[in-house]
Structure formats: C-alpha cells, structure tokens
C-alpha cells in the first residue's frame, strides 16, 4: 500500500493516467446516478436493482453482438430492451410498492436485484465477460496517459445521453409531467396527469439509462452477474453527494467518484477497491448527517 503511494509520488504522471481512466468510468456512474435520482425524486423509491439494470444492459449488448449486431449499435438496443424490462417490472412489482413505506420498496427492489442477479448467473454463467469493439488505444503526452478509444466513446456517449435526458425533462410534455409529478403528485393528478403512467415511464426510462450504461461498460470494461450492487451503491453515493435536482452536480460527483476510486484502487490494491467504495459511502453518509446536525450547534 505504502509502496504504491510511493510510486505515485515517484511518477506523478501515473496519477494523471489513473485519473483520466477513472473519469471515463465516472461518466457511467453519473449516468446511472441520474436515473436513480429520477426514480427517487418521482416515485420516492431507492432502486436497489439499479446496478442489475446496468449488468443486464451489458449482457444484452453481449448477446446482440453475438448475433452479429455491430458493437456500437448495441447501445440503443440495450436501452430499448431495458426500457421494456423496466416497464414490465413496474407493472409487475413496483406499482404495488410506490405508495408504501420506504422499507417495503427498498426490500422489494432488493429482492428484484437478487432475482436478476441469479437469473443472469443461470443464463449467462458467472464468468467475467467483455465485448471487443476493435477500436484502438489512444496514447497521449508521450505515453504518459494511455486511454482505450472505446472509453472515450463511452465517456462522450454517457454525457450526451445524460444531457438529452435533461433536455427531455425540460421540454417534452412527458418530461414536464414527470417533473410535475415529482414536485406534487396529488396536484398532478387533479390536472389530469396519469401519474401511474408517469411512474411507469420514469422507472422504464431509468432502466433504459442503465441499459445504455451497461452496454458501454461491457465494451470498455467488464461485466459479470454479480457486478450490480457496487453500481447501485455508486449511484446512491453520487446522488447523496449531488442532490436530486442538479445535473451538473451529478456529473461532477460521478466523474469525481470515478477518479477517486481508480486512484484508491491503485493505492490500496485492487482487492480493496470494492471495500473502498462501500466504506466511502458509509463515511459520507455519516459525515453528511453529522454536518446536517451540526447546523444545530449543540453546546453539549
């Protein structure tokens, strides 16, 4: 651990490389987090199955590529398939827990995440998989930063998708209905907005976002059936740091987490990278809560 830290000091450009690569995956975190914030804000549900949607998106892309679909074309395909999965899950399960207490929805989506995880394990097997795109590597600054081109593609795609969604929420009619429902569902209902459809659309849209993210993950990195929970936790982390409404903050927090995690993974050793993410979440939760309470200025 200390040796790794020493390495970073000896070769500062190594840090730049780690950060650059971390930012790339950070964009994916931001994308999934944006979806989580949407569902949280509109349905009042924290979707534990978030990471499983990412994982499924990856397997959809893999399967499609196996059937001859060009890798980059799997991105919209994964989004569409996951949109349908999200809609279906809403109709089967989620609509029953929307108005119930948070614990019920938390546990229900937890159950969904276990089902999706185990089904994927049975169907696709437990191996670590990746999808070759045939794109090359980018060598920057005399080889001090080495970046796979697909990661750059992924980064740009993630940001474009996120911004498109943001514009949709601002401009489109359904987008307005989604915003109205998140601010005051009862008021939305008396204006003739079918909030049940809005909920379904929101949940499906979130799944689609994750699906797109997943197809990017499988091309630029790797997936396996048990990859989900860390993605859920990362989304949650980004959302609690950035808040529910602010897209710029979500992007910043996502990128920051990606970079931080990559550096930490190098310093602590890869075997502790996941532990780092979870511990970081716990620490941020506690510190954040402490700061909120601090505003009360206890004397004793």
């Amino acid at each position: 651990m200390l040796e790794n830290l020493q390495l970073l000091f000896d070769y500062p450009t190594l840090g730049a490389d780690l950060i650059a690569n971390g930012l790339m995956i950070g964009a994916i975190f931001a994308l999934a987090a944006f979806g989580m914030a949407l569902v949280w804000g509109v349905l009042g549900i924290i979707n534990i199955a978030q990471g499983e949607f990412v994982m499924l998106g990856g397997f959809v892309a893999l399967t499609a590529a196996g059937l001859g679909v060009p890798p980059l074309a799997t991105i919209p395909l994964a989004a569409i398939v996951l949109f349908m999965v999200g809609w279906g899950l809403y109709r089967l399960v989620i609509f029953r827990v929307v108005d119930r207490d948070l614990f019920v929805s938390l546990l229900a989506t937890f159950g969904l995440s276990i089902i999706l995880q185990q089904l994927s394990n049975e169907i696709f097997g437990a191996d670590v998989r990746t999808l070759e795109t045939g794109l090359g590597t980018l060598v920057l600054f005399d080889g001090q930063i080495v970046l796979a081109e697909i990661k750059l593609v992924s980064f740009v795609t993630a940001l474009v998708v996120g911004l498109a969604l943001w514009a949709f929420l601002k401009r489109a009619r359904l987008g307005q209905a989604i915003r109205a429902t998140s601010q005051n569902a009862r008021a939305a209902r008396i204006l003739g907005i079918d909030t049940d459809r809005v909920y379904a659309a929101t949940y499906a849209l979130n799944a689609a976002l994750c699906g797109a993210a997943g197809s990017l993950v499988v091309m630029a990195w790797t997936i396996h059936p048990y990859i989900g929970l860390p993605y859920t936790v990362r989304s949650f982390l980004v959302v609690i740091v950035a808040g529910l409404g602010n897209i710029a903050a979500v992007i910043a927090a996502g990128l920051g987490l990606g970079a931080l995690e990559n550096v930490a993974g190098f310093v602590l050793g890869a075997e502790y990278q996941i532990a780092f993410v979870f511990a970081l979440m716990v620490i941020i939760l506690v510190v954040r809560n402490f700061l909120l309470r601090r505003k009360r200025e206890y004397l004793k």
Partner: protein
Amino acid sequence: MTDAQKYALVATGLLFSFVAPFLLPQFATQLTMLWLMVIFALTWDTLGGQMGYNSFGNILFFGIGAYGCAVIQRDLGLDYFAGLAVGLAFAAVLSAIVAIVLGAGMLGLRGHYFAIGTLGLGIAAGEIAGGWDYVGAGSGMVPPLYPVELAGRELFFYFLMFALALVTFLVLRALYATKFGLALNAIRDDEDKAEAMGLRTTQVKSLAWAVSAFFLGIGGGLAGNLLGFIDPRDVAFAGATFGVWMVLMAILGGKGTLWGPVIGAVVFHITQELFWTYLLGWQRVALGLLIVAIVVFFPNGILGTLRERFPEWFGEKVEERV
C-alpha cells in the same frame, strides 16, 4: 385463543426442542441451524421491528463474532472448551463494542440512509476480511476442531445453540416489557416526537444495537465452530444469504412482535430445508421471488395478519367506563 392454550402450545414446543435431536439425530445439524435462524430473526427484530431501524447489515456482528471467537481459540492456546468459552465471551463483547462505536455514527442516520449504510458496512466488512491475512484473507479460517475422542459433538452444539436462542428470547422478552422497550417502540413510531418529549434516544438506540450485536456475536462464534470453516463472504459476512434471511424471517413472522421472528424463522427454515434441495441451483432466484412476494403481499407477516383478524388476542379493546 386463551392463555391456557398459549401456554400449552409453548410447553409442547419446548418439550419437542429438548427431545428433537434424540428423536431425529440425522437432522441434528439442521435443527441446530434452526436455532441460529431464530437468533438471527430475534436480534434483527430488536432494531428492525421494535425500533424501526431496518438494518441490512446486521450480519456484520455475526461475522465479527465468528472471526473474533476463532482468533481467540487459535491464538490463546487454551484447551478446546476453555478456548471456546473465552472466545464466545470475547465475540459477544467485541460485537457489542463495535455496535456502540459504529452506532455513534450510524444510528444518527434515518430510514433508507440507515438501511443502505448498514448494507455498505456488511459488504465492506466482507471485502476487508477477504483481503486481510491475519484472518486468512480470501481462503478463510478453520476454528479448532471439537476433540475427536469425545462423542456428542452435534448434541453439544445443538444444546448450546438452543440455550443461546432461549436466553436471547427471554432477555429480549424481559427488555421489551420495560420502559426501555417502550422507548424503542416510541422511536419506531416517531423519533422526532420522542426527542421532543425528552427521551434520550441516542442512548436507547445504542443500547438496543449493542444488545442485538451481543447475542448475534455469540451466535457467530458458535456457528463458526459448528460449520468448522469461516469464509469471509459465504459464511461470516454472508449478506446474500444469512444477511437477507434475517430480515425476511422477521417480516415473515411479523415485525415488531416478540413471537413473530421465532415463528418466521421456524417456517422459513423448514420450508428452505424441505424445498431448497429440489430447486437445483435456482434457490437464490426463488429467494428473490420470495422476498418480493412477502414484502409486497404479506408485509405484516403471520402475526401481523392474525393481529388484524383477531385484535383482541393482542389486548386491543374498547373499554366502556362504568
């Protein structure tokens, strides 16, 4: 149901518990695991049911107990039984202390923040144990073996686990009948109100978690010895099995009731033992389905549903004044 009927039921259950391992020796291990399940559900419910703090990471204390006990047994050089006794005591105290220390930060979190925060704790602990050489890292630990020359290993662990479940039950029952128990319920129903009424909620919450961790820690120590192997992710911090089962069993039986977790654990364990083996690898899919089905369609559990149907069994009544 009259009181006499209730007592008869309990007496029958107790009697069966004493003779079961002799009647069904081939199931001794499963029966021992049954009591572990009861401990899981009971200790989870102290926070989740009675106090309304739904922890997804209580498995943490089970794992700490398992490792703590095994490390003492390994390093202290005592003979088996003394080592086990000291190890269990250490497991209990260590778990309780960790609960109090972590509680200072974690128990300030409300609702879903607490649930997800504890989930993170449980998983982080598993990941850390999986990389830490002192406790065998990813390859796990093997606690000392029960002396081969002695017979009755299974009975020994059966009765230890049974005793632990019984003591846990009795202690919790006594606790719930005190002001402390009512304070737990008050925090569950409305913590801000409890604070506004002057209750020392922080202390109450910490103690509750410590009590829960105390018994769970002993359970972990015992289970490590019973299973004979401690794996960081599949035994000690097995969030995807034991960790979820705790929650599920308590809900199945009826959150926030004394007997609910016991009933839920028995029903779940028997179901699992009967059907699990026939599912051929699809058990965990079934587990997920079960979770969804129970929380969506049966959130009040067995006792909660009975309570709705027969409120007078639970002492609810309108009394007109004379």
